[in-house]
């Protein structure tokens, strides 16, 4: 059961450890971390379900309270690991712009010397202020009917 809990926790902890700010990643470890991220929800869910099944099976046979507490903690951690594989911690740190809104250039309250990322598609011009983009990082947008993603 402890082994299953460790697997479940590793499913969300390993990718976060590897793919974190101010840490260099080699291509091999990055590929491994991304592979784990992709299979993590399923693997950790299986671990959590197995932990629940084991706990149910053993609950009447394990009487000593330290062991019962350990079993409960192991179960809770396995479930926590599974839940966390569905949480995008990066979007918790930098909230996404789910519904970007725009205003006319003449109304925008942006300092003249602030930098913007500028795009022009078929005569439709958009500007994405960098001071805002550096926080949200990604804006999924449609300009002149063309779906684009602005990144910074």
């Amino acid at each position, binding site marked *: 059961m402890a082994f299953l809990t460790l697997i479940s926790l590793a499913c969300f902890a390993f*990718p976060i450890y590897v*793919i*974190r*700010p*101010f*840490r*260099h*990643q080699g291509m091999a470890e*990055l*590929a491994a971390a*991304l*592979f784990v*991220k*992709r299979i993590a929800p399923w693997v950790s869910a299986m671990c959590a379900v197995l932990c629940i099944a084991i706990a149910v099976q053993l609950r009447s046979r394990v009487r000593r309270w330290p062991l019962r507490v350990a079993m409960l903690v192991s179960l809770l951690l396995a479930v926590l690991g599974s839940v966390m594989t569905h949480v*995008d911690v*990066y*979007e918790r740190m*930098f*909230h996404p*712009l789910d519904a970007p*809104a*725009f*205003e*006319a*250039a*003449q109304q*925008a309250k942006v*300092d003249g*010397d*602030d*930098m*913007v*990322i*500028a*795009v*022009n*598609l078929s005569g*439709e*011009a*958009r*500007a*994405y*202020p*960098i*001071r*805002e*983009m*550096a*926080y*949200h*990082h*990604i*804006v*999924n947008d449609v300009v002149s009917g*063309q*779906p*684009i*993603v*602005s*990144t910074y």
Partner: protein
Amino acid sequence: MWKRTFAGRVLTFHLAGINNQNFLMRDDESGSYWQQISGRAISGPLSGSQLGPVRSDELTFSLWRSEWPAGKVLKPVAKFARDYEDKDWEVQMLKARTVLAFPKSGIKARELMWGIAAFGASRAFAINRILKEKLIEDRVGTEPVLIVVGPDNKSIRAFRSRLKPGEAAPDFYRDAALARTAEQDALASAIMTDSATGSRWNFRGCAVSGKLAGHCLEDVPGLKDYWFDWRNYHPDTSVSGM
């Protein structure tokens, strides 16, 4: 900036990790992971796929507004606005550590560069040098290019400097002192002259007067990037002035 349409599907991207100080993004539709810097999927069902680039500029807001007075600007989200970057954020970033450095290059890791990858080659230009000299004539691969600073003394663009294919490129001279113009006249304002015809050219690379009035130079996309990042993704890059 990338196109979101791939193989007939419109992809929706989410921030998914930091990769050597660029970021990774994941698309909802396939669950693949893509590099921000290259637009290439590096993991998942679409691994190896490449998003199409979208041409973009990095300009001051005032210059952009002068060129596109009817344009639209991304609005801030009030509840996150206090977390947006301070005005001097680029100065603050110079103090942040990097995960990569190339000390043998003689260039500081966080030296800001204008990187051009075109014509089968990549070449980097120190932004401090561009802003000081206002116009640099150079080559990327075998192609003559010019990098020029806008009338705001901050925005940068690059162009192929040949006027016609197969012809030698003329020299271009940027005006040392630019006449102050109203924002609405910026597009008509010339900032440089070519040595072949004496035509006058604006910051969009279009001749506004002279023999070549109406002709536009081909623009060359560039990327403002820290040296360590540019060098990491363009290991064969050359550096102008070195």
